[in-house]
């Protein structure tokens, strides 16, 4: 098996930009991605929308259209592309286990870049497993990939930029938005970061524009929403909550939940790369140097998977990682890397200036980080917050012990939907910082493959 120079996991903005940059410098590159087309989640479906589905662009908006240039530059490069491919293993020796067309194989690389992007933070509320409840990003994926919008009345609940963006897109598409329920935005806490977000350029105007378009459309908006519940018998029928001390019930066919995005650290944790808890974003991220290198030789991380920075920051981070790969493999020296990357480093830093404002403005609500006893927190194994607290009372000191007590995190999602909540609940119950409590030990394969596929491994 001959090694490729650079294996990239993920075809979002960071992975695509890194691939194009490294390939332009003469490296042999392959991008492995789970989806059938490039763009990641943020630019999902961009090639179709840039082509035959051009009508949908008016609904999706200009920020989405920016993905076209990123994908085009990747397509124009000599970088290889392996779509519909699952990476279920990355070893410290930079061998990757992949699965494509039901066939598992190993790939050897001289360098690996993990560009697995972001996941939505879990939003555990009573009733969140009912059909008719989904994450806001899920509804947005349907819009991007398939040009689909909710057929009946929809309630959007939570906080964060994506919630407003989705609301604005639904308004443009003529969707019946029954209400937008904001679980709290901390304007006072965000105020000190206002100058920085202004300097980051565009973010504030974009956000205010989205909010204005939703308001102008007359969407009912409730602020400081608490006690959010999805209710219905076998299917969502209504959303219940209190706002300003008043209890309300809004009938709906669909509830879209959102409270920000977090780094998708699953693959890096399985290697494992060293990770740290980021208090401002309340999630884990890999510990990296200025060039994106992890503590494991030859393995780097770029984009939202390295900590949330947004799509524009991810493009620059990807390019920076591409230059660094070329340096590490001897194609260019450090001085050439520094010179070529200087513009991207400056732009990357500028985009990251917007983050402290957004992080402070949209903190995840405490009741959604540390839910009440009756709320199911592990969807796969149906474990409640109360059962997790009981396991702590019985002596459980961390997520791995609570996992063996309760089965939380043992289901098919491997802790992706409950990991953060479990760590937060245990930390809260023990009166310790989340960093001290830790998270699940993630083990490969991080995606399912059958025994037959494993046995036929080449």
């Amino acid at each position: 098996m001959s090694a490729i120079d650079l294996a990239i996991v993920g075809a979002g903005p960071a992975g695509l930009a890194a691939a194009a940059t490294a390939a332009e410098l003469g490296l042999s590159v392959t991008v492995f991605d789970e989806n059938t087309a490039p763009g990641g989640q943020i630019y999902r479906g961009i090639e179709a929308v840039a082509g035959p589905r051009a009508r949908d662009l008016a609904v999706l908006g200009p920020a989405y259209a920016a993905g076209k240039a990123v994908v085009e530059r990747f397509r124009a490069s000599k970088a290889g592309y392996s779509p519909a491919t699952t990476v279920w293993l990355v070893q410290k020796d930079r061998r990757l286990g992949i699965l494509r067309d039901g066939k598992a194989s190993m790939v050897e690389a001289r360098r690996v870049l993990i560009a697995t992007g972001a996941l939505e933070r879990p939003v555990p509320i009573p009733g969140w497993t009912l059909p008719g409840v989904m994450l806001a990003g899920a509804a947005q994926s349907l819009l991007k990939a398939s040009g689909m919008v909710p057929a009946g009345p929809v309630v959007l609940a939570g906080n964060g930029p994506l919630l407003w963006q989705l609301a604005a897109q639904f308004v443009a598409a003529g969707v019946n938005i029954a209400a937008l329920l904001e679980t709290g935005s901390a304007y006072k806490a965000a105020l000190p970061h206002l100058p920085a977000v202004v300097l980051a350029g565009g973010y504030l105007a974009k956000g205010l524009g989205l909010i204005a378009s939703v308001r102008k459309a007359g969407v009912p908006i409730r602020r400081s929403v608490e006690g959010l519940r999805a209710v219905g018998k076998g299917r969502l029928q209504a959303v219940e909550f209190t706002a300003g001390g008043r209890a309300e019930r809004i009938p709906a066919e669909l509830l879209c939940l959102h409270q920000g995005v977090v780094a998708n650290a699953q693959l890096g944790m399985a290697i494992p790369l060293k990770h740290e808890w980021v208090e401002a974003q309340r999630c884990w991220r890999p510990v990296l140097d200025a060039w994106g290198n992890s503590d494991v030789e030859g393995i780097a991380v770029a984009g939202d998977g390295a900590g949330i920075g947004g799509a524009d920051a991810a493009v620059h981070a990807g390019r920076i990682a591409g230059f660094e790969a070329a340096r590490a493999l001897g194609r260019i020296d450090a001085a050439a890397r520094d010179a070529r990357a200087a513009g991207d480093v400056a732009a990357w830093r500028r985009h990251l200036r917007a983050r402290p404002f957004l992080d402070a403005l949209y903190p995840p609500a405490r009741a959604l980080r540390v839910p009440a006893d009756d709320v199911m927190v592990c969807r796969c194994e149906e474990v409640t917050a109360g059962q997790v607290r009981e396991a702590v009372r019985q002596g459980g000191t961390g997520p791995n012990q609570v996992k063996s007590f309760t089965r939380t995190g043992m289901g098919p999602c491997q802790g992706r939907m409950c990991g953060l909540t479990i760590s937060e609940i245990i930390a809260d119950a023990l009166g310790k910082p989340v960093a001290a409590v830790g998270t699940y030990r993630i083990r490969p394969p991080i995606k399912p493959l059958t025994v037959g596929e494993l046995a036929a491994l080449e």
Partner: protein
Amino acid sequence: MFRRLHEPANAVTIQIDGSPVRAAPGDSVAAALLATGNPVCRQSPASGADRAPFCMIGACFECLMEIDGVPNRQACLVPVREGMQVRRQARPTPVGAVASPADKVAS
């Protein structure tokens, strides 16, 4: 539960529990399911409660369905193909137990 902004060109037809469902090339199986009146993809193995696709990006594993005879495929990651046979997954029957009518997925 979802509607299309525009009718698809070159629609394909898949079967969900034996009923024909029209889908657009490029749709995932989960998307095609959600464009029908019934978003349920499976019953939870733990309680038997109905579940529907939740994250649509391959992370939550709620959308596990039987696709062309292979169970537990992530329907949000599998693109539709003409003639594809898709089945909602019922709660697995515990070893030694007899399936009750309640273990059947409502469709």
